[in-house]
């Protein structure tokens, strides 16, 4: 992790350009295993040089989707286009994609060197070129001194790097990563995430990663597709997914959030245009400054992230903000953050998170205190789905 800290987030958003041609296109893909539908009529575009994440709980179809791109599974319906060409029926050994497996799948009877050279040997490259490429890859993943080791003589982190080097050695047009960091401990995982981004940026490849770890997806991706039961619920940048989830499912899946079901009472705007919306959540009236597709009387959900909720012992002077009153029920001290669980008069729990900016041992708010929770009009969200 030396020189990486340049401008990591580049200006890159081909998906906003209507004339951009997708690099990979899943077109109305359906995959059934017997009676079970793993992927259901899914359409998705991925652009060149994009770091794209498929995020979802286990069994949502994300791995199946990736395996179809690698060629290990054939779609039941629909087609997959790579650079505009239909790749249905092309066997995995003739596809310009390479995959890094969740189990790493290193060949145990070959040394690190031979593992990395394996793909290059299949292409019948000259010996000298293979040796040069292997060396380059070893250097990229900083394993030069381990070239002659067998996989079982390496630690988990080192094996992960060998697997990465092996899948990158052929310079695939698309690198597929199946839960690549799942077996690493937290510190190492975070470090490797930044390295992956760095490598992807340096080599200028398209990366498609499958993960169930939302933090991982948020860190590395240009865009994330959140999947549930074989369909894509939302495709957007990490910031959009977090700040503007399009449904209760996405809001709940990514990060921590307070969600209240309610009914729209008034809207000050036309459909979709920005304006103030008021919602009655079983006796608590909340207002949101946001465009939404709801009209008066619609059943919607109101959501607000805990870190956007302020906590104070006194009623806020500004009466235009949303405010609720309750008792501190529980405090979760996380070091950098403290999470307050506040119980309202009707037993509903609202979470508020506060950064512990000063080293206060004696916190002013403690268990059993009556407090006010308040948040500005633009902090909350209206979820119609």
């Amino acid at each position, binding site marked *: 992790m030396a020189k990486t800290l340049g401008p990591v987030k580049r200006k890159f958003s081909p998906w906003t350009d209507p004339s951009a041609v997708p690099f990979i296109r899943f077109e109305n893909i359906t995959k059934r295993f017997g009676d079970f539908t793993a992927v259901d009529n899914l359409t998705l575009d991925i652009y060149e040089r994009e770091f794209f994440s498929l995020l979802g709980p286990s069994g949502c179809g994300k791995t199946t989707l990736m395996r179809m791109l*690698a*060629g*290990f599974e054939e779609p039941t319906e629909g087609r997959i286009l790579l650079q505009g060409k239909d790749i249905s029926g092309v*066997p*995995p*050994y*003739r596809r310009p*994609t*390479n*995959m890094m*497996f*969740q*189990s790493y*799948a*290193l*060949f*145990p*009877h070959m040394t690190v060197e031979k593992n990395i050279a*394996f*793909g290059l040997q*299949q*292409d019948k490259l000259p010996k000298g070129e293979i040796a040069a490429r292997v060396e380059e890859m070893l250097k990229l993943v*900083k394993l030069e001194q381990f070239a002659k080791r*067998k996989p*079982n*003589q*390496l*630690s*988990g*982190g*080192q094996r992960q790097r060998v697997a990465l080097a*092996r*899948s990158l050695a*052929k310079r695939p047009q698309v690198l597929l990563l199946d839960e690549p960091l799942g077996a*690493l*401990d937290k510190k*190492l995982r975070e470090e490797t995430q930044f390295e992956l981004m760095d490598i992807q940026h340096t080599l200028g490849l398209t990366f498609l990663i499958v993960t169930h770890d939302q933090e991982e997806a948020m860190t590395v991706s240009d865009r994330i597709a959140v999947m549930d039961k074989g369909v894509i619920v939302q495709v957007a940048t990490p910031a959009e997914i977090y700040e503007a989830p399009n449904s209760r499912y996405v809001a709940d899946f990514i990060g921590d959030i307070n969600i209240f079901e309610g009914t729209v009472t008034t809207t000050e705007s036309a459909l979709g245009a920005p304006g103030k919306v008021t919602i009655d959540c079983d006796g608590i009236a909340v207002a949101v400054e946001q465009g939404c597709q709801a009209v008066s009387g619609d059943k919607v959900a109101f959501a607000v992230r805990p870190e956007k909720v302020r906590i104070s012992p006194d009623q806020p002077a500004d009466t235009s903000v949303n405010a609720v009153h309750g008792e501190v029920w529980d405090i979760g001290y996380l070091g950098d953050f403290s999470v307050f669980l506040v119980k309202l008069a009707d037993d509903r729990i609202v979470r508020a998170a506060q950064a512990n900016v000063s080293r206060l041992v004696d916190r002013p708010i403690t268990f059993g205190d009556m407090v006010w929770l308040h948040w500005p009009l633009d902090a909350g969200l209206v979820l119609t789905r």
Partner: protein
Amino acid sequence: MKSSRFDATVLTLGFAFLYIPIIILVVYSFNASRLVTVWGGFSLHWYQTMWSNEGLMDAAWVTARVGVISATIGTVLGTLAALTLVRFSRFPGRMLFSGMIYAPLVMPEVITGLSMLLLFVAVGVDRGFWTVIIAHTTFTMCYVAIVVQSRLLTFDRSLEEAALDLGCPPVKTFFTITLPLIFPAVVAGWMLAFTLSLDDLVISSFTTGPGATTLPIKIYSQVRLGVTPEINAICTILIGLVTIGVIIASISTKRAELRRQQDEHLAVGRGAT
């Protein structure tokens, strides 16, 4: 727990029951006397006469060839059967196929031998060396299939997928990835097949013909004329070969295990970097 005198007695009796006959056989192979049950002093005489007994040596040579050829064919077929059973989990008649693989294991040898004999007679094949090989192949491949199948069940399929993904076609993947990794099981299957072929008497006697007398058949027919110390000598050599084989096999597995532990120790010691 303290071992009682009773335990020690039972253990001694058990081992005696297992090994005294073999010890007697080995000891009397070094007997100078012609009589099998009277000790006449130490001698290697019978090993010499055994060596110059052409009938016995021919039979030994036939047995060795039958063993190697039938074990090899049986290993190839058994490995293929195991691959089919493990890899293609659903195909019409799978249950029947797997049942038919296991059936010869429990089938009385007399029946296997007899049915083979009837088959060869019906087709009009002259019985001899090759009919014995065919018969031995049919029953040894079942054992190989079982040994290889149990290895394949724990085989990580993603290794093969990784090879395919890196551009290696399926057949080449089998020979460069799958086969080297399951090879110890294949070798174990071959050894088992060879041993089974080596000591088979019943099926051999049904399917053999002129000029293809195997060692067990030879020994059995000679014993009917009276046991000579020569037989003891050749049996001692057989026991010796089998024992050496078992010892080598167990030492090499122990070594492999030790090496694996050292490797893991090395990897852990390195730590995650």
